Each structure stands twice: as C-alpha cells, then as structure tokens.
C-alpha cells in the first residue's frame, strides 16, 4: 500500500504541469501561412504559439465576423479552472499520503479518479460550448459570409479534437504537454488504485 500511495501522490502532482504547459493546442495552417498560426490553451488563458499569432488570427477572423479570442478576464473559466486543479492536486496528495500511512482504503484512489474524470468531462463540455459560440456566433455585417449548401451560415468552429478543413485553413486541435501530463497523472491514479487493491486483497486472503 506504501507504493500505491506514492504513485497516487505522483499522479496527482503531474496535474501541476498544467500551470506550466498548455492543456490544448490549436494550429491553423494555410497556403499563405507555411509557418502556421497557433494558439496554446492554458488553464488560465489563451496564448499565441508565436508572439503575434493571436493578433493575426483575430485580424483574419474579422473578415468572417468572428469575435476576438477572449482575454483571461473575459471568461470565468480561466479563474476557476486553476482553483479546481489546485484543489484536486491537494486532495490527491492528501489521499495518497493517507493511503501511504494505510489510513484510507484504496477505494479513495478510484474516487479521486472518478471525480477528476467528471470534472474533466464537464470542462471539455464547457470548452466545446465556447468553441461552438466562437465559431458560429458571427457578426451579421461580416465582410465575407459563407453558407452551407442548405443556406445556413457556415460554422467556423474548430474541432474539439482532431483535424478539420475550414475554408483555406487546415485546423488541428490536440492536447498539448500539460494535457498529456494530466492524462498520465490520472492513469497513474488508476494504477495506484489497482496496486492498492491487489495488495489489500492479498493481505485479506492471507
């Protein structure tokens, strides 16, 4: 159970990577942009991959009537997400430490994982809602209006995950280092659960 506790602590601590590295990354390439424009989505705000990428994305988006990319203070998520992550890290470390001291059951590890998963899915849902709004809530006086074959306005929503072609842009949306560290951390808490369960079962059968 000592080993499981340590793995639980390490797994939780990996979430701290989100404060240093982007959670997600969206890259926009086009014939005119051989060096693609890109945005890194951190839990506390959106930054350009290169210094002037956001300004240039906004500059291009004004043609199709998209709103500018939000500043941290324009979205509540960017102040709440860091608190949630810090809370989950503290909770995970405490559970891991108590597990190490064999004060709590391995089931708490699974509990943490499930809570984190629910929060993660809610976060993704929220992020996707923003993408929908960003890509389809367009200025009615936009310079260029593109419609789908059925006459409805085209949405410029970037994919939540994966690749999509939007007009002349190739859009790729994938997790970034912070996101991968979070996934590895969450996976480690599952490992901690599995290991803790194995040891505990062994102890009870003896």
């Amino acid at each position, binding site marked *: 159970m000592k080993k499981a506790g340590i793995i639980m602590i390490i797994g939780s601590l990996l979430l701290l990577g989100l404060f240093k590295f982007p959670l997600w990354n969206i890259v926009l390439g086009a014939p005119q942009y051989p*060096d693609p424009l890109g945005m890194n989505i951190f839990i506390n705000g959106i930054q350009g991959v290169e*210094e*002037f990428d956001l*300004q*240039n994305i906004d*500059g291009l988006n004004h*043609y199709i009537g998209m709103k500018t990319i939000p500043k941290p203070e324009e979205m509540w998520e960017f102040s709440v997400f860091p608190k949630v992550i810090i809370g989950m890290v503290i909770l995970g470390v405490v559970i891991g430490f108590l597990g190490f001291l064999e004060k709590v059951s391995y089931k708490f590890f699974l509990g943490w994982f499930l809570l984190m998963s629910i929060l993660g899915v809610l976060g993704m849902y929220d992020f996707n809602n923003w993408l929908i709004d960003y890509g389809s809530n367009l200025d009615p006086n936009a*310079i*260029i209006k593109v419609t789908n074959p059925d006459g409805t306005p085209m949405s410029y929503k970037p994919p939540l995950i994966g690749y999509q072609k939007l007009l002349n842009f190739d859009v790729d949306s994938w997790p970034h280092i912070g996101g991968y560290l979070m996934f590895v951390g969450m996976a480690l808490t599952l490992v901690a659960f599995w290991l803790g369960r194995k040891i505990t079962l062994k102890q009870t059968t003896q």
Partner: protein
Amino acid sequence: MMKNKFKLSIGLMVAALAFTGCNNSSQTSNKGALGSSAAEKVFVAPGEHDSHYAFLSGGYSGNLTVYGLPSGRMFKEIPVFSQFPTNGYGYSEETKPMLETSFGFVPWDDSHHPDISQTNGELDGRWVFINGNNTPRIARISLTSFETEEIIEVPNSAGNHSSSFITENTEYVVAGTRFSVPVPQRDMSIKDYKGNFKGALTFISVDPEHGHMDIKFQVLMPGFNYDLSHPGRGKSHGWFFFTTYNTEEANSLLEVNASQNDKDFIAAINWKKIEEYVNNGGGTMMPANYAHNLHDEATHTATSTMKKEVRVVNPSEVPGAVYLLPTPKSPHGCDVDPSGEYIVGNGKLSANLTVHSFTKMLDAIENKKFDGDAYGIPILNFEDVLAGSVQQPGLGPLHTEFDGQGNAYTTFFISSEVVKWKLGTWEVLDRKPTYYSVGHLTIPGGNSRKPFGKYMFAMNKITKDRYLPTGPEMEHSAQLYDISGDKMEILLDFPTHGEPHYAAAIPAEIIKSKSKKIYRLDENEHPRKAISEADTKVVRDGKNVHIYMNMIRSHFTPDNIEGVKVGDKVFFHITNLEQDFDVPHGFAMIGARNAELLVSPGQTRTLTWEPQQVGVWPFYCTDFCSALHQEMQGYVRVSPADSDIELSWSLGE
C-alpha cells in the same frame, strides 16, 4: 609616331597571347552544353532554399542585389545610393537624408565592391558594405533588415574605387581614391597635376556593436590612381594593399600616358602603425565638408549630419608605415590569399601574373632593400619581394579569388576566361571560358581567411547572344562554376541587374535565421507614428497639413479627409499596424510627383503631396495585401486656397 608604335606592340602581344590561350583552352572541353548532372547541381526544388546568399553590386544602378546560389535567382534589390520608387527609398521624408552629400542631394551612384563584415578573418554576416564610386561614399547595409542603414561620404576623394574592403575584425572599412585631386580642392591648372595632386586612402572605423562608421584618418598618398585594394589577413593582418596605375601622374590621354611605366606599384600600408601614430596625436585635422547619414531603426528615420573636419596623415612623416612594391603594367585587382602570405597583383597589361610574398616584403623592409623612393615613400626592390609569377596564364588579368585549398582563380578580361592555378608552384591547373569578358569573380568567403569553396561565379561585362535579345540594352551575364573538383565545371548562366562589379557571397545558414520578419510596433519611436485608431488625426501647421494615418488589412484610418486646400503641403505619416511576416502595405496618391510608399509591418513612412487642383482625389494601397485589397482606398477633398472648410477626418461614417 610614339603612339602608333605603342598600339602596334600591344596588338602583336594580344595576337601572340591569344594564340597561346587558344592552344591551352583546346585541351579541355569548350562546349557550352550543360550535362544533366550540372542541371541537378543548380536545381533548387520549389519551396527549397538555396545554400548561399550572393550580394552583387549594381554598378550604375547604385544598388545591391541579393541572389541565391546555386539557382542564380534574384531575391531582392536593396536600394543603397539610388532613389527607388519601388518602395519610396530616397523619396519618403524618412529616407531622403540618406542621399545627402556635400554636393547636395545626389540620388544615384555607381556601386562597385560589396564586402561582408568579418570576425577573426571569417565572415560573420552582420553587415555588408559597398562603395559609391562616383560621389565618394561608403554604405553599410544590415543583414538582418536587408536595408541600408548608414552612408558616409569620403572627402578629398574622387572616384571611390579601391573600396569598400574591410579588415579582418571589421576594424576598418577602407576607401581609396581612383582619381588623385588637389587636396584641399582649389582652382588650379590641370597641367600642374604632377607632384601637386594627392590620392587619399581613407580608413573608416566601424563601431563593433552598432557598425557606425567614422573616418579615423586619411593617408594622403602621391598623385597616382589607386585602383583596388585588399586587407592583409592572418600573418599580414595590420597591413592593407592597394594597386596603383598612372604612377606616371599623367593628366590626359591616360590610356597611353598612364601605360608607359614598365611597373606601377602595390602600395603596402601598415595601418596599425598609422593608427598608433594617430592615437598618439599624429596627423593634422584639416577642414572638410562631408555627409554622415544614419538611419535609425527605432524611429524609422534617417538623419544627415555634415562633418567639418578630417584627420589627414602625410605618409612620409610616419616612418615604416608605407612601402611601394613594384608590380608590372598597371595592376588592377589586388588580392590577398587566405593565409595572408601572397599578394596577387593582376597586371592588366602584363602577360604574367605577379605574386608578392609578405614574408619577403618584411625581410626586404628590414634589410632596407630599397630601389629609390617616390615622394619620400621607399620603393622596395621588385626581385626581393616577388614570390613568383604565373607564366602567360591568359590575357588581361583582372581579379583573383581563393578556394582555401591552395588554389587561386583569376579572371582574364581579354581572353574571357577563368584560370585556376596553384599558389606556390604557380602552375596553371585548369581554364574555363566565360561569356563574355569577365570582370570580377566571387567565391563565397573568397576574401577572408576561410573561403567556403564549392562555388565560384564570374560576372561578365558583355552578354551578346547568351539570352533572348532584348534590344540594344541587355542585362549582363554571370556564370556559376562548381570548383569542388580538380577541374572547374560550368553549371549555370544567369542574368544580373545593373552592372555587377564585385560580389560577396556567404553560406545561407550564417544569416538566414537572423533575417527580420517585422518591425515591432511596440519599439516604433517615430515621432509621428499612429499605432492605434486614437492616434490618427489631421493637424494643420500653416500651409503644412500632417495626416497621422495607419493601415491594416484592409483599410486606411482615416480614409476620408476634408479641409485640405490648394497650395498646402500634405504629409501622409503612415504606420503599418500589421505584425505579420510579409504583409507590407503600399500607399499611392494621385498626382504624387515623387513616388509611392511601401511600408513594412510596424514601420512608419511619410510621403509628401502638394495638391495642385481642387477636387476629390483618391489614394489606395499598391501592394496586393489581402482579399479586400481592392477596397483599401480613400479620398482627400481639396478645396480652393481661400476656402474656410475645417479639417475633418473619418473612417466608416
């Protein structure tokens, strides 16, 4: 009678040597056909980059062109000494001061010899310098912005030809005068040239951090013509070598009268010694009048300052600083090999190439092996400084470059070829024709301690049938050769712009990553910038109307302006708000009698317009910037001079 005899003897010599030249060249293939392997060697696939930059002087265009090797594609023409309506250089208020001289505004020149800055004798790729030959000037071009940053005029000089060559740590950029002139200039009989005219060799210090140029001293040499020069390097660092012709000091019909002496000189200048002399208060400050023009990247604005004095040094007063090395027959190119030991004097009327030894020169100086003096400057004994000579390599040798493998490559104008020969043994190894009548040649780093070899290109004076004919006036031609093997292989034939004299080339890796993409708006210190909509305004100051305007895809702010009157002088101060690579905007005003503007991202430029007629007059963006480029336009309403319409301006109302 004398004259005819002379012409006849030259004619015979040319005929005799042409025969020899033919015999030699028949040993190797002289066919112009390109092998398929040559095509592969110059093929740069679409989207791929060339391996080298080449900077070719523009000659009478006054500019500098940037090419890629091995493709021979031209990437850019950088305006240096000439007004350039393409982007408004020399027309915009910010750049007009760059072309100020003591003669006033001189909007053109004849640019000759680019040279790239060096550190420890190797190309460092920070700046390229080039000389204006006609109105003596030296320019410094940044290799991050690829723009001309500084131009300094050279006083007491005329025909700034033996320039602009730099010492191995870019301590100095050196400018020698082709014409000797009265110093100071004065009203005197031309016939009194001999003994009275002077040839100024100018050492311009280069600030190691910013590159700023300042004349440290001028050596006032005898009234010869100083043709070309090169720095000593390695063991000869601290010396500078100049070829001379017209040591006869003729002032008329030079083609005959300056070709009489069997030998002219290479002047060897120990600049370190003169620098020490000057640092200790040597030389005299003489009144002068010359322009120093500096473009500031932060303010995007050039200023011109007239300097009023220059330090001159009489060489006979600095013992041991200057010596003359006899060199046959009006030498043209003066080239120093990578080790610094050999100084090649390309005697253009000589049948042989003369090579001096630096070691022997020092020895001759030490043992005072002098053969008289000229105006107090010791002449060294020819045999005592001679390292060797290349026997009858061709006709009309002009310039030599080096590959760093112990080989030298010399151009021959009359026999129209490049000859490869070996340093030390002086044997001819190979020869290849050029098309036609080659002047300079360039090997990347060929004027440094570390040539990069691989490529050599020859820049020709005569094109004739090489390309599709384009009327009586044609661009010159250049040929690229692969010199990595024992024999030179011609790879490519490409046209050049203006008249390239010398060129400097450098591996692309050294500079390409440092090439600027934008100017930062947050570093723009132009006093009339408008970096936000709130900064845009129109201000009247008497008859002057200042329009603070900016532009971003795809509009000008403001784009409707009223209250301008006939007789006003309108200044459009335009800031490009883009911070995206390769998104310049243009600005063109109907009836503008100067030029258009091309404004780079983050830059501010000013165009002056003097409206002549009442009406509503349009302006627009000239650079196809975006899908809505054609919509990027506006109007200025011009009212009669006595109108009382107030200034107003707007966007989107």
